[in-house]
């Protein structure tokens, strides 16, 4: 038994060392270092760690000290325009869902799939003051969708890299790799993700857009900032549906001369749940 004990002490020593080393490794992998280009948020996460209070409560990319290289797509949603034109929101939602063959369920159905939808101000911004609402925020709905977070918790959680961050800042889905574990749904603090609880083809027998693939059952989906339209030089479908109203502005947040940066410079904007450090790429003018 004595010998066993000595053996044990050796093992215990080694495992303690391993235990002490593990956090450093975990820290490194969480911040995405060594993850290559796919997980492009790596550098940004490190940046966050260094200056933890940088973005908190900030509604504007101006707070970034260093200018980012590369593209980071983002969106500004001007709720004033949507308030002025109540039909516009539904039009944008329809444009997206038709474009991407999103099957339609009764509203509030547990199996519902939503890429972009309208919700109350208090639901979109639960962390903001709701005590004495002005008429506009009380009466009108707000468009919400995936924020394409700069530090996306969904990407961190996914065990297969089926959800990943592209070089252009878009948080993408690989429907053929997703195992349907729904860890990303638990991780997303914005409820932006939907799961195919049923066979989508049975609910949407004929695709509304034959050029876009329908999904299979058992995978997660969400807004992809219309990555394939962007590749063709077109604007996202919802932005196009909003037309020239200026209600939705899309562009490169890292380009100081872009239209979106101009709008951000001229207006006070907010992000959803800024305190969580996800740094959404969707901004709201309220």
């Amino acid at each position, binding site marked *: 038994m004595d010998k066993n004990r000595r053996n*044990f002490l050796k093992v215990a020593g080694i495992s303690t060392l391993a235990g002490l080393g593990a956090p450093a490794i975990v820290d490194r992998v969480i911040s995405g270092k060594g993850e290559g280009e796919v997980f492009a948020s790596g550098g940004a996460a490190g940046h966050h760690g260094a200056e933890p209070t940088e973005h908190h409560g900030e509604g504007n990319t101006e707070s970034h000290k260093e200018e980012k290289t590369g593209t980071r797509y983002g969106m500004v949603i001007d709720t004033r325009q949507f308030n002025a034109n109540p039909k516009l929101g539904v039009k944008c939602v329809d444009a997206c869902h038709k474009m991407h063959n999103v099957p339609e369920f009764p509203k509030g159905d547990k199996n519902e799939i939503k890429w972009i939808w309208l919700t109350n101000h208090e639901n979109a911004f639960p962390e903001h003051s709701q005590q004495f609402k002005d008429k506009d925020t009380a009466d009108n709905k707000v468009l919400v969708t995936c924020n394409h977070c700069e530090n996306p918790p969904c990407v961190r959680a996914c065990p297969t890299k089926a959800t990943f961050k592209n070089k252009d800042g878009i948080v993408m889905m690989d429907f053929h790799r997703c195992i349907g574990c729904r860890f990303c749904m*638990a991780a997303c603090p914005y409820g932006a993700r939907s799961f195919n609880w049923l066979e989508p083809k049975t609910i949407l027998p004929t695709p509304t857009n034959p050029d876009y693939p329908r999904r299979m059952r058992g995978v997660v989906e969400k807004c992809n900032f219309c990555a394939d339209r962007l590749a063709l030089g077109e604007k996202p479908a919802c932005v196009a549906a909003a037309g020239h109203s200026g209600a939705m502005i899309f562009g490169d947040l890292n380009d100081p001369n872009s239209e979106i940066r101009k709008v951000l410079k001229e207006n006070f904007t907010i992000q959803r749940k800024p305190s969580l450090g996800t740094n959404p790429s969707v901004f709201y003018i309220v």
Partner: protein
Amino acid sequence: MFEKALKGNTNYRIWLAILGVFMAIGGLCYIHQFNTGLGTTGMGRDISWGLYISQFTFLVGVAAGGVMLVLPYYIHNYKAFGKITILGEFLAIAALLMCLMFIMADLGQPIRALNVMLHPTPHSMLFWDMIVLNGYLFLNILCGWVILTAERKGVKPPKWIYIFVYTSIPFAISIHTVTAMLYCGLPGRHFWLSAIIAPRFLASAFAAGPALIVFIALILKRVANFDAGKEALNKMVTIILYAALINAFFVGLEFFVGYYSNIPGHMHTLQYLFFGLEHHGHMYNNLVPFMWGFVVLCIGGIILLAIPYTRKQNEFTLGLGCLMIFIALWLDKGIGFVLGGFVPNPLHEIVEYTPSLNEIMITIGVWSTGFFILTILYKIAVGVEHEIEN
């Protein structure tokens, strides 16, 4: 050694047959789910994890609980546990197999499950969970089997096996810690976002696992003539008591932080679980009975195990106390913890979850499969014990 599982008296066969029926029903229900999709469950867009993942979380704890036998026996050389340590190891095997079955039942694309290994993703806690769960399963199968074989031959187990036995101890801690990290690292889920989750999981595991073992040991004494020994059971009850008390203490701390700080996000889920949450004039409270069941059974169980008479003189009350603790912790972790965490949803809407019949039958099917495996493993272990005695 497997031949020992084949011979058994009528009760043994009837018990296995009953489990077999539930396994078959569960299997049929799973085929239905496999063909139709997870829409056959009560889960949905807002409550995206249900019974499967909550059972998984609880059973990881049951598996880890076995270490409360392994550790005193192998490290502190506590001889009284000699006979029942194998029960802990075999319980871990059955519980882990149930965990893996629940994970598979929960996947939308189970056929692609291997993607977790084909595309290893170290920043995902699910990846690490898979590693430690499979590692712990391997360690328990290996250690249990080698040691039991040696015992049967009447020789000392080979030296090298102790390396694996000692490794299994940090592994037991890690499986439940990493499982806690699935939850406590998610931003925006306030109920889960608490550093106390991992220690609380461990405390409840160290009560639930041993409670089940004591309960089963009392049954084995009657039906299989297997006596674990008074001293061993008594020591385990002490462990159960302390662990259950620490778990209750941690739950109390969560209440303090939530209600004293008065931060709505930290109160909502507790309010929903224990008292019901009112929202737009509607009262949402479908988990309240379960949570008060937890409180009552936990207190009742602790009392039964703490009073010397009910603990030492009366095996019925001892078994009842252990069963009450086990069920209480199942309600706490196997129901409340996971399901409650989704209320309210990220948009502060409230959606309630009710499992579907199909889902419940699959869940019962997995539990039955687990107990089927456990019965066979225990049959073998007890058979070897008897062989040595003769």
